[in-house]
């Protein structure tokens, strides 16, 4: 990564830390400095990071609730319509539609649809899969999934300034501050 960025626009600046405790103090400073387009990249979810970054809750549980209710209604309607309306037949003296015999499938489909909602909902909210990202062009960043901790401030942040933000990141005390461009140089 050389300093000149003829290939593509500036994506942002990153800085690297060795441990969660060093990272945590720096993260609080970034939050308090008022940046909004920034992120922390860690090999595992660091406990307490939500507060340090000032992240609020996610709407995922509501998506899952909707998924679960869909599964429950679908299972109820399906069993009622198929066994009591479209092709009614009496077997072992059981009613055509009765809650006790239909509970297991209602439960299973509630769980199934809730699980789909939480799995796919999470990826959609996270804007993944996304196989290309400017950060992947940085070799150092490969350790973000292994043993290093990164703070990235994006160039599109209203408070971003190439020099002042760089100085701010240097003041946080990380290993290095590097520039990341929108597209790879090679």
């Amino acid at each position, binding site marked *: 990564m050389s300093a000149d960025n003829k290939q593509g626009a500036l994506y942002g600046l990153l800085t690297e830390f060795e441990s969660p405790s060093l990272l945590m103090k720096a993260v609080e400073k970034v939050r308090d400095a008022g940046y909004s387009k920034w992120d922390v990249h860690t090999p595992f979810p660091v406990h307490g990071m939500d507060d340090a970054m000032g992240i609020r809750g996610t709407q995922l549980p509501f998506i899952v609730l909707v998924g679960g209710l869909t599964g429950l209604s679908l299972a109820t309607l399906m*069993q009622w319509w198929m066994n009591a309306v479209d092709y009614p037949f009496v077997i072992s003296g059981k009613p055509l539609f009765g809650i006790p015999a239909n509970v297991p499938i209602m439960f299973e489909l509630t769980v199934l649809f809730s699980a789909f909602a939480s799995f796919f909902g999470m990826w959609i909210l996270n804007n993944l899969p996304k196989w290309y990202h400017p950060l992947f062009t940085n070799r150092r960043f490969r350790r973000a999934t292994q043993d290093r901790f990164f703070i990235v401030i994006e160039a599109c942040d209203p408070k971003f300034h190439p020099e002042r933000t760089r100085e701010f990141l240097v003041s946080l005390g990380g290993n290095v501050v590097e520039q990341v461009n929108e597209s790879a140089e090679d």
Partner: protein
Amino acid sequence: MNASVTDTYDNTVDDPTRPQELILGGQDFTTITETVSDIVLERKTPLAWYVAFMFTSGLTGILFLMIGYLFITGVGVWGLNNPVGWGWAIVNFVFWVGIGHAGTLISAILFLLRQKWRTSINRFAEAMTIFAVICAGIFPGIHVGRVWVVYWLFPIPNYQAMWPNFRSPLLWDVFAVGTYATVSLLFWYMGMVPDLATLRDRARGRIQQLVYGVLALGWRGSHRHWHRYEKAYLLLAGLATPLVLSVHSVVSFDFATAQLPGWHTTIFPPYFVAGAVFSGFAMVGTLLIPARQWFGLKNIITVHHLENMNKIILATGSMVGFAYATEFFIAWYSGNPNESFAFVNRAFGPYAWAYWIMVTCNVVTPQLFWFKKIRTNIAIMWVMYIFVNIGMWFERFVITVSSLSRDFLPSSWAYYKPTLVDILTFMGSWGLFFTLVLLFIRFLPMVAMAEVKTVMPIADAHSGERRSVGDYHGDIPAHVRKGPGGGK
């Protein structure tokens, strides 16, 4: 272990003033990453792996040959006879589904219970769940007789304008096992994505980078992603917990809703679930002990982890023993002659040999785990796991066959014997199971690296500072963190 001072830290010692360390050998994030991902990326595949793979895929071949023979000829190739219409196929189905339960228990229930030691073994156990459910799914599919109309199991519009009977427990089973397989797969894959990203970032070969890159979905460890990811993980754990309890309950309904003495009991759902967890933990142990030995994971999957598993085996094994006793008591107490006969026949009838194998393996031997020396002895516990595997297969055999072979009408009583096809099909399912396990060990991260890192003392962002007690991640306070795992 004697009292002499050694440089190996024994994390099985119960000292209430000091939490046991989960990860040994002075590991940090780098060494954990290297230990686990090098198995997949760097290490040369050992010759033994190829030999084992040849053997297990040969057995898998036999499985499919036997299934082909069954399809061409019909279920007469099995040892089924007139009263015993459910033979090994159903026994194997219940056995394999049960095995899977340990994986979900470890990944979901122990997660909700904040059992941090689960992180070392959950990936492996979840993989085992999926492979066991695949093996289980084969048997009901092939034992329907007319396989060409097997789609009748599902609510698919067909030319007869006919729908499945939703009031039958056999159909509940289709939905329960189907949901279970799907949710387990989602949970397993979601848990693996951060580790697949680690493999992507460490891979040096182009093909490896490409394959792991695609599978990792572009994961880049963003904390804004982690935030929703952890919420989704918690939700899936919360969903999988009642699910896993429901699956073996529904499997037990296949028996319990029938009128047959020995099957028609209300104790079946909890009894089946306890048995399933019991057998599943034994299978996890059976596979984990060689894996940790051969792939250098002894510092990540420690004796402490195995001891905890043995405690669960002891607890669930005792529940199973209690259920056996309760069944007998109720058979006598109910005053129902058919019920009493079914149980006396189980213990002293033509299948007494199977019954006593079951009791020995499931009730008697696990009680040895009360002794700490045995609970922490690798060789003995491995033998005990094998016993449990055998015992739990026999439990399903005893339940299924002993009740059927002597039903209400003595003139129709018959002794059931499996044929060679039955035996080879079952062995073949082991081949399939082990083939999948071998592929998993070779190509996927065996330990959940990201999750293990969260339970290491150095993962605590406030290390060195005053911190609240009972915090979820990194419960080991700094002043006791003096063992070899204490940072770099």
